[in-house]
């Protein structure tokens, strides 16, 4: 078996503080992603899941600073990489899609051109060579009439189509890793189902691994092989997805699952009060999460 595609060790992100030690908003985050795997990070707002993903891509803005840690990708540490090399990797070997495609797309450029740019920048194609490739990329994400749509501007597309365009751009260079940060949170459920299926099919076909970040336990359950649960900047539990949802170990995870009104539960459990997850994680506790870390390969 080959090694992990990405190995993150002790990632710590914080805000430097002149008067004292920095405020650490993500502390000692360690996990790895295997080639072709769909790995989920789940947590509530402020848990540090998005900041961690942005740190991997070198995209966090000040005052957020990566304080410690490594993210090994093909023998290189992404966190210590010069900006130029990072730019070559980003969008090429590691790409990213966000919750709101409208803010990620250039409103003034036709979408065909925005996709073609990927091939020009990363594959060295000329614009005229890149254009048909952009149309192919649109067809690959099942955008109807890709020839016509390539000439459209982002505002002329629905939210679901815009997210497909983002996926087309992200997958254009057949990356090793796709980081998807709440990719369907802004979409209707039936559109969400289509977009999730598309991400899964494309990544399976291309052998692309996915780091899926979501607050939605249902989306995580449906998509991921392994899941890390984050709260307050700490990784609490790292498990096989089925094991996590059938037998959550950390009290926080158990609380999170009990707080969820699960479709289909009322017929068997009645209309109960939902569990009140009234706990926070002490982010300065010494390594408490380690006691709940389960080594990979654990039988589900």
């Amino acid at each position, binding site marked *: 078996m080959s090694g992990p595609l990405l190995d993150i060790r002790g990632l710590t992100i914080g805000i430097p503080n002149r008067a004292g030690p920095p405020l650490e908003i993500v502390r000692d985050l360690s996990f790895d992603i295997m080639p072709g795997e769909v790995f989920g990070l789940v947590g*509530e*707002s402020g848990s540090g899941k998005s900041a961690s993903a942005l740190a991997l891509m070198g995209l966090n803005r000040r005052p957020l600073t990566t304080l410690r840690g490594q993210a090994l990708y093909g023998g290189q540490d992404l966190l210590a990489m010069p900006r130029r090399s990072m730019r070559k990797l980003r969008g090429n070997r590691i790409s990213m899609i966000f919750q709101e495609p409208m803010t990620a797309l250039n409103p003034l450029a036709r979408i065909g051109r925005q996709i073609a740019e990927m091939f020009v920048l990363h594959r060295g194609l000329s614009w005229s060579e890149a254009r048909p490739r952009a149309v192919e990329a649109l067809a690959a994400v099942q955008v109807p009439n890709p020839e016509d749509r390539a000439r459209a501007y982002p505002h002329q597309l629905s939210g679901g189509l815009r997210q497909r365009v983002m996926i087309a751009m992200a997958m254009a260079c057949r990356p090793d890793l796709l980081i998807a940060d709440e990719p369907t949170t802004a979409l*209707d*459920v*039936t*559109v*969400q*189902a289509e977009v*999730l299926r598309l991400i899964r099919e494309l990544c399976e076909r291309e052998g692309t691994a996915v780091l899926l970040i979501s*607050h*939605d*336990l*249902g*989306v995580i*359950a*449906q*998509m991921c092989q392994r899941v890390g649960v984050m709260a307050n900047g700490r990784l609490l539990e790292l498990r096989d*997805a*089925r094991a996590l*949802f*059938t037998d959550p170990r950390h009290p926080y995870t158990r*609380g*999170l*699952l009990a*707080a*969820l*009104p*699960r*479709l*289909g*539960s*009322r*017929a*068997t459990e009645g*209309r109960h*009060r*939902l*569990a*009140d*997850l*009234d706990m926070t994680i002490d982010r300065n506790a010494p390594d408490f999460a380690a006691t709940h870390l389960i080594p990979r390969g654990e039988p589900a």
Partner: protein
Amino acid sequence: MSAAPDPAGAPILKVEDLHVRFPVSGGLLGRKRTLHAVSGVDLSVQPGQCLSLVGESGCGKSTTALAIMGLQPPSSGAITVEGRPVYGPGAPDRRARARLAQIVFQDPFSTLNPRETVGRALSQPLMLHGVRSRAERAERVATALRQVGLLPEHAARYPHEFSGGQRQRIGIARALILGPRLIVLDEPVSALDVSIRAQIINLLMDLQQNLGLSYLMISHDLGVVEHVSDRVAVMFAGQIVEEGGWREVFTAPAHPYTRRLIETIPNPARLTGGASEILPPAPEPPSGSIFWPPVDRRPDISQPPEPSALVSIGEDHRARVRPV
């Protein structure tokens, strides 16, 4: 929680054959078109009950809510709250309507004035409704804050000092302050984290029981809808396509659109082999008819919908069909 609707009891909210059409100018030559946002919606909420209106963006559910609140005059149809018409001759004025029904929005922050303390936001409606005594206003504000799980001291604070969940509590307190019996909840927990969402859902259920409130909840979150509703109406392209008690709709969904909504919800139970994994087989529509409208293509709401009818397909369960 509540018993079966008392057929003799007068509904607190009744919507009959509601149509809302919007004129839009579009096309090359500025052709006038009409969007049929809501096309013949009937709803009824019994006292103490929660009816949920479910559907995706653009199905007309929020337009229906606004019409009920008196904020979107209907093109035709009748809406009554506690037997009083919301529109037309004899309709109560805005102030009187405010005591009949209130609305809670998805994002409370955008509905609160950032430069006004919470106490002021809550006491202003009382002032407008003739509560002259400052002491009485303060007392009622304190009561409302306690009802939603906040403290009377919070009245002195500004909206930005609260978390998202607390702000939604303030939104609920403001809806309660004039003592309405009907509250329209427009996506009340969609913007909240799972743990906060659970707290707000619990609060809404407690308030419903303790104050005898009736809810019309607009939501796209079927997990929440199943959990809190007594009745459910599923809306698609401006029409109700299925309607019934929560148990009928969720355990025996009939219309293809309802089934698709339930099937596409990512549900952890599917992974763990929960009971909800497989939908029961689709029931047959009454003979000589088909479920309508079809869901494989998006209906064109720039045209009036083709004739169809909500027919009974079981006890307390109706679905939209048309003759073959």
